[in-house]
């Protein structure tokens, strides 16, 4: 605690005569450390979650992944290509300057002039903009090159910077001429040092130190509901054991991602509590269907059994999802009968449960010409998803019991992802957290036939292909009307589930643990947001 904190505490103690004063500081032990304070540096959840503390965007995703207005009061699609955003006029940046449309245009330009960034997913969205105009300082018209129904969701991912951080002339959306910026573009270092970390979020960045932690303090200019905390400190503790120990010993008020097996211990203590929330991350099985010969399948005939729909159905029936959820996931998961939770956009509201029926599974296998089963190897990660190697082990045992003799090869994710991308596997267990697009996210990424020009099917490593499905999905992702799009997505999901080109297992639940007296509702995107952590007393 530095001197200022001591002083605050001492003063508050004198005034109140209680120890509750220190409750305004919050220390959070976090599992994954953000790799930069620059919100456009790397599009990963740890960085995006930190950005939501310091910055805000035109829209914001709520705890159920629905997009709500934020810096924009409202938006409307004028036609298939142009959108109008009405910006708030009461917003100030943390340095006191006013927020207006210039800041948004500058941000779009910066995203495209972001040399050191790890991936360009933000700039991809902006590249699709034909023009961005500001008829007045608080109105923005974006015209896109291709139809983009998800525009509000996509711009909600782009944290808005202040144009005051660079030297510039008149700002216009003119990427060829640097949009009017005359000085050097900000770098990742400028954000990590705090110099350019000027945003409209609920907190200010006090200090960002790799490996040691991130300190935030309340932003007095924040336009939304002020967070309860004067100071927040995030401490990176990647290992589960030490992170829990830190909570038990009182070092941390709050930790994210406690191990499910430790929840029992937390329940037994009356000074601790926990929260759980179903996430959008689905764990699923991906089969090599496209190749007639696949490296890790051994059958008598030499054929690829995954190409037979009956075999895929038999595999799904052989797996007891409820047992996996209750025994391995300690109840902190939901059996999955589609690829996104039913509350998400475009999901089936009430999907047909995939039954567990080992007898029927054997019958189906025999019918498909495999009465004696066959031999396969399941490849899985052992450090990426919750209890991934145990889940994969259970899947292998369930399948073996049904006659499909399954060997398990679990490996660290760095090797798994490399090998999977090279299509070295026949049968792999993967995970996918859907965000923008709801049900479309998984379907366009995995289930559609690989189509680079449309940017879909990039993760279809098993080369599953269903032309009828592709037609419906491609229509869906080009439909601006939301009701119609949701309808098409439900239709596409049903088609995918009917043929089971992918076998969903379960949705992971996210967990948080904290000292009693705190409250956190949890979020579907697994983010830990200090502004949403409250004390029980304040409602």
């Amino acid at each position, binding site marked *: 605690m530095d001197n200022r904190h001591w002083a605050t505490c001492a003063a508050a103690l004198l005034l109140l005569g209680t120890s509750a004063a220190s409750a305004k500081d919050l220390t959070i032990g976090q599992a994954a450390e953000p790799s930069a304070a620059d919100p456009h540096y790397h599009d990963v959840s740890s960085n995006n979650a930190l950005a939501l503390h310091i910055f805000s965007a035109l829209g914001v995703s709520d705890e159920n992944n629905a997009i709500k207005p934020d810096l924009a009061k409202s938006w409307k699609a004028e036609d298939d290509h142009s959108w109008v955003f009405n910006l708030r006029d009461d917003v100030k940046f943390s340095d006191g300057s006013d927020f207006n449309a210039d800041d948004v245009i500058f941000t779009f330009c910066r995203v495209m002039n972001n040399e050191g960034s790890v991936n360009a997913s933000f700039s991809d969205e902006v590249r699709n903009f034909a023009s961005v105009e500001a008829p007045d300082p608080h109105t923005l018209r974006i015209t896109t090159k291709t139809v983009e129904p998800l525009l509000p969701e996509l711009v909600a991912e782009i944290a808005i910077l202040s144009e005051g951080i660079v030297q510039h002339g008149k700002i216009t959306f003119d990427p060829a001429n640097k949009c009017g910026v005359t000085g050097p573009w900000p770098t990742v270092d400028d954000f990590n040092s705090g110099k350019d970390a000027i945003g409209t979020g609920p907190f200010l960045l006090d200090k960002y130190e790799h490996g040691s932690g991130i300190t935030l303090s309340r932003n007095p200019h924040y336009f939304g509901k002020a967070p309860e905390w004067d100071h927040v400190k995030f401490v990176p503790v990647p290992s589960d054991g030490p992170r829990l120990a830190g909570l038990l010993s009182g070092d941390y008020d709050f930790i994210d991602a406690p191990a499910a097996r430790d929840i029992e211990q937390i329940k037994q203590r009356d000074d601790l509590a926990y929260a759980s929330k179903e996430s959008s991350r689905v764990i699923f099985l991906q089969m090599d269907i496209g190749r007639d010969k696949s490296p890790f399948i051994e059958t008598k005939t030499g054929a690829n059994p995954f190409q037979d729909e009956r075999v895929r159905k038999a595999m799904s029936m052989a797996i007891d999802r409820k047992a996996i959820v209750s025994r391995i996931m300690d109840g902190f998961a939901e059996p999955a009968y589609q690829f996104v939770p039913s509350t998400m956009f475009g999901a089936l509201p009430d999907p047909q449960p995939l039954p567990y029926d080992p007898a029927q599974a054997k019958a189906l296998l025999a019918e498909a010409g495999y009465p004696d089963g066959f031999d396969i190897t399941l490849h899985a990660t052992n450090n990426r998803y919750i209890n991934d190697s145990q889940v994969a082990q259970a899947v292998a045992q369930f399948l073996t019991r049904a006659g499909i003799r399954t060997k398990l090869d679990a490996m660290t994710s760095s090797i798994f*992802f490399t090998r999977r991308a090279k299509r070295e596997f026949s049968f792999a267990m993967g995970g996918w957290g859907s965000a923008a697009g709801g049900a479309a996210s998984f379907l366009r990424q995995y289930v559609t036939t690989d189509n680079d020009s449309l940017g879909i099917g990039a993760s279809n490593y098993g080369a599953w292909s269903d032309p009828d499905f592709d037609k419906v999905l491609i229509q869906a992702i080009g439909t601006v009307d939301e009701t119609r799009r949701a309808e098409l997505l439900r239709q596409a999901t049903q088609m995918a589930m009917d043929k089971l080109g992918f076998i969903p297992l379960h949705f992971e639940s996210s967990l948080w643990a904290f000292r009693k007296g705190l409250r956190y509702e949890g979020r579907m995107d697994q983010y830990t947001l200090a502004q949403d952590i409250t004390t029980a007393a304040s409602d």
Partner: protein
Amino acid sequence: MTLYAFQRLLQSIAVLFAVSVAVFLAVYAIGNPADLLISPDATQLERQELIARLGLDQPIWTQYATFLWNGLHGDMGTSFVHGEPALRLILTRLPATFELVTLSLLVASLVGIPIGLWVGLNDGSRLSAAVMTGSIFGYSIPSFWKGLVLILVFAVWLRLLPASGRGDTIAVLGIPFSFLTLDGWRHLAMPVLNLSIPNIALMIRLTAAGAAEARNQDYVKFARAKGVGSRRIVRRHILRNILSPIVTILGMEFGSLLAFSTITETVFAWPGMGKLLITSIYQLDRPVIVSYVMLVTFIFVMINLLVDFAYAALDPRVKLAERLS
């Protein structure tokens, strides 16, 4: 001496070169960092852009040549994950590890050597046998388990010490140190203890064995016959004679702790270099891994050199041999 130093320098450069080839190839073989960095929903264009920017589209020897050329100019590359110079990333973590390791070895020497000396000189007593047996435990208990037990006892049950982190630091010449604040000491206590326990055991065993052997040597007997006081015999004759192997081991331990106190740093979330190495390996952050190994190799080479010089200072026979050769 100059020739000797020059030879050592050439050897060191050869070692550094060989290590750089080995590490570069090994990390290259593990996997493609682009697959980990780029989210799977990135477009092909995006992937190719990043791969080209990181230089991963080049053949391995071109990548190595670029690395070597930049390395010779003092640029060890930029971290794939953090976008900062790899060497700077490591060096900002160095003081935390340095502090931890130095204090641990200091504790190990101050506790271990006197106890070892006493045990060696009182060979055969019951207490010394007990200390020697105890030291086996101290040396063989796995570090992560010991760390967790320490946390359980001192942080969770007794609530005396914080479970993890570095605590408040005070900067000296711009480098933050924990040992200058009370809070820093509270954070240091457990990791230092955890690292020093096996080294205390090591020091005890090493000193005891040396002392037990030395006290029956002729020069000790002669000194005793001459009427030299027993304190002086221990200090001037026994200790000085057995100090060479102890200093060698201390030097080696210093190097290996500096490089691989990974487990202790992970258990106590100590923001040092070891923790950085582990995360970098998981993320295939090649510039950081390679720079780290190069730096560690460099440190080892330097320590070995210093140990050789320390020998000369401690053991006059080394100086003599030098002069005669």
